[in-house]
């Protein structure tokens, strides 16, 4: 019976370690595989921290276990050992964590700068769309096919909602704005998250590894419809992407006289991705 509490307090850390060890493999941790190169690096950072923290966790709990088990055999009438503290120990367990933290902060600097500092963006990344977050949708403005995106709206710009098409395999940049309150442009599978702050234009770049239909959600509470603020990022081949822009252009210049398909077919055509996985 005396051994119960030591065993109890050592059992749970063991369970925790097992769970943390297997959770990446069981997909309990990240929202799917990272589908962007920078996302993979971010995941690596997570793993690195897990390793460091894990070692510390295991170490400290072994120490805890040792102390507990040693104390079990301690007779009740024997005097306890009293420590006056140890300067060496204090220094050790201040310097070591500080060193680890310093290491982590320097180690992640490159990934952070690549994401956030304009001079470290990929050289050739061009803005392909301006995404304006609004209660409760994402309004997207593309430039006309073949033209660069201008900071102010142009007469031949193309507009759509909630449906961001990007070419995969190369870095793309969007200019993120907000029309009313703070929102956050969050594409979990690409590991992209950036607050949209009203009054600012924030460049957000990402590169998608593969074609696919990725969820775009809002990650900053913005009102009663925050939970509904879903969009999608459709990564497709360059050719399909250009074709999509052309379809959008034709549809937006529709004057009622030319032969165009019915509304449903038109909208289906330019909102169609690989397949409409994201229902409501």
């Amino acid at each position, binding site marked *: 019976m005396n051994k119960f509490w030591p065993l109890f307090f050592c059992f749970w850390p063991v369970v925790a370690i097992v769970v943390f060890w297997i959770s990446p493999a069981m997909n309990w941790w990240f929202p799917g595989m990272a589908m962007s190169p920078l996302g993979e690096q971010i995941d690596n950072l997570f793993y690195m921290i897990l390793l460091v923290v894990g070692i510390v966790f295991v170490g400290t709990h072994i120490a805890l276990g040792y102390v507990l088990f040693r104390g079990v055999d301690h007779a009740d009438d024997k005097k306890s050992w009293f420590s006056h503290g140890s300067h060496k120990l204090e220094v050790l367990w201040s310097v070591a964590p500080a060193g680890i933290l310093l290491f982590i902060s320097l180690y992640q600097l490159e990934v952070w700068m690549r994401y956030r500092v304009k001079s470290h963006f990929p050289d050739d990344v061009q803005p392909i769309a301006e995404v304006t977050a609004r209660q409760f949708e994402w309004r997207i403005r593309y430039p006309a096919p073949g033209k660069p995106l201008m900071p102010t709206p142009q*007469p031949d710009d193309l507009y759509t*909602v909630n*449906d961001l098409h990007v070419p995969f395999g190369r870095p793309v940049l969007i200019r993120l704005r907000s029309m009313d309150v703070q929102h956050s442009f969050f594409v979990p599978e690409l590991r992209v998250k950036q607050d949209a702050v009203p009054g600012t234009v924030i460049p957000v770049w990402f590169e998608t590894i593969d074609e696919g239909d990725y969820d775009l959600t809002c990650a900053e509470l913005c009102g009663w419809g925050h939970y*509904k603020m879903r969009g999608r990022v459709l990564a497709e081949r360059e050719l399909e992407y250009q074709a999509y822009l052309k379809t959008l252009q034709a549809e937006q210049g529709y*004057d009622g006289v030319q032969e165009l398909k019915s509304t449903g077919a038109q909208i*289906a055509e330019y909102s169609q991705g690989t397949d409409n996985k994201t*229902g409501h």
Partner: protein
Amino acid sequence: MKFSDTIVCAVALLSIAGCSSNSVPQFETSQDTEKLFQPARDAVESELHAAFGTPDQLVVWPELPVDFGNFGGSIEKVTTQGTVVVPLSGQSPLATADRLPELSGAAVLVAPSGGDETAEDGQAPAEKAVAVYRVAHYEPESKSLHVVGDDGQPTQISATEGDGIQIIGDGLQKGRNLYLRHCVHCHGVSGDGDGPTAPYLKPRPRDYRKGLFKFTSTKPGIRASRDDLFRIVKLGVPGTYMPSFMLLPDDEVSAIVEYVRWLSMRGELESKLVVQLSLDFSSTRLEDESFADVSAEFDEFRGSDLPDIVSSAGEELSVDWSAPEDPENVVTPKEERVASSEESIARGRKLFLSEKTKCYSCHGETGAGNGTATETINDLPGQPGVKAEEPGLFDSWGQIIKPRNLQRGLFRGGRRPVDIYRRIHSGIKGTPMQAFGNNLSDQDIWDLVNFVLNVPFEKKTQASH
């Protein structure tokens, strides 16, 4: 435990449990219906109930031009205890094959096939009644359909091989579920634009009950088409709180559109009945006459006139809501769009500021929506002598409405050239924006369209006021 402790515990428990009962969605009667005297109000409610039901017990009125989602088939075999084997196929756009495993609660009609129609004594053969049941569930692999009675209780299905089966109402159920999930919190259970979220929104959500929708492609006086409503749901209305449901699959949007049309028809039936009854049977009449007298008159009216009113209202709804699907009723420009050149825009500007159209009187000389019409305090609509509280123009829903600020480049009904053409040609239903199609040629309207699309890009010169 002391008595006072019990009280405290009870209070604590109650505060967690709350006082609201399990709320079931119910259709609400309109404010105009509330003004009728009680028997008239009851009559209106019972007619609506008979024709449309409640959100949980939907009623299919086959006369209405709504796609209720029909499946049909011919019975192959009748097995025991309310089960028949019948291969079902969809007979209307909302009745798709993937709905078959989800059938539940839809109405089942069994129509006997020819059979023996022996004439008796030279009279016409008696028509066998169509029996009505309810779907319990359907198994597509074995094609067996389990039914229960109309009251939900198990029942024997009386049918023979070869009888025709129709399952009707599944599309409406699908639309109802989607509407309750996505739309009801703004647009309300009855489609009155007064859901729980509505008080926080300006402009208010659409009240469907007038049968009026603003942004349509149809001619003046014609209802909105399915296409128009589909566009609104898919693309949203920029500049308002109506979001875009771009990512909903098309079939779900179509189901929602059908349900919205159905709600709109319900609202129209209610207002038609109320208009017919309100002259003579409003509750203010009880101030002068006795309840018994008015009741007696109402009973006579109810017996002799009301059935006709209801059936002719049904016919009108049928005609009015089928008309928009006719391509003849869609506004299509006859001439292709004039290219957007400096000259065209200059012509458009001239028209905008001309006395012929007087666009500037509402939209302002710079297109900022601040024309002089917005500065006067006008009478409330329909009430001469009763002034409004703030200056401006009204829409048909009684709200103050501002003319569009063209400088923003936000077009609620769509930004395609044809959309703006339609706004100018047929006006915007339910608002003071009038139809100019009679006065202006296509060339004129295209010039105006080019001008309007260019307004956000005009260099901001010195403001005129």
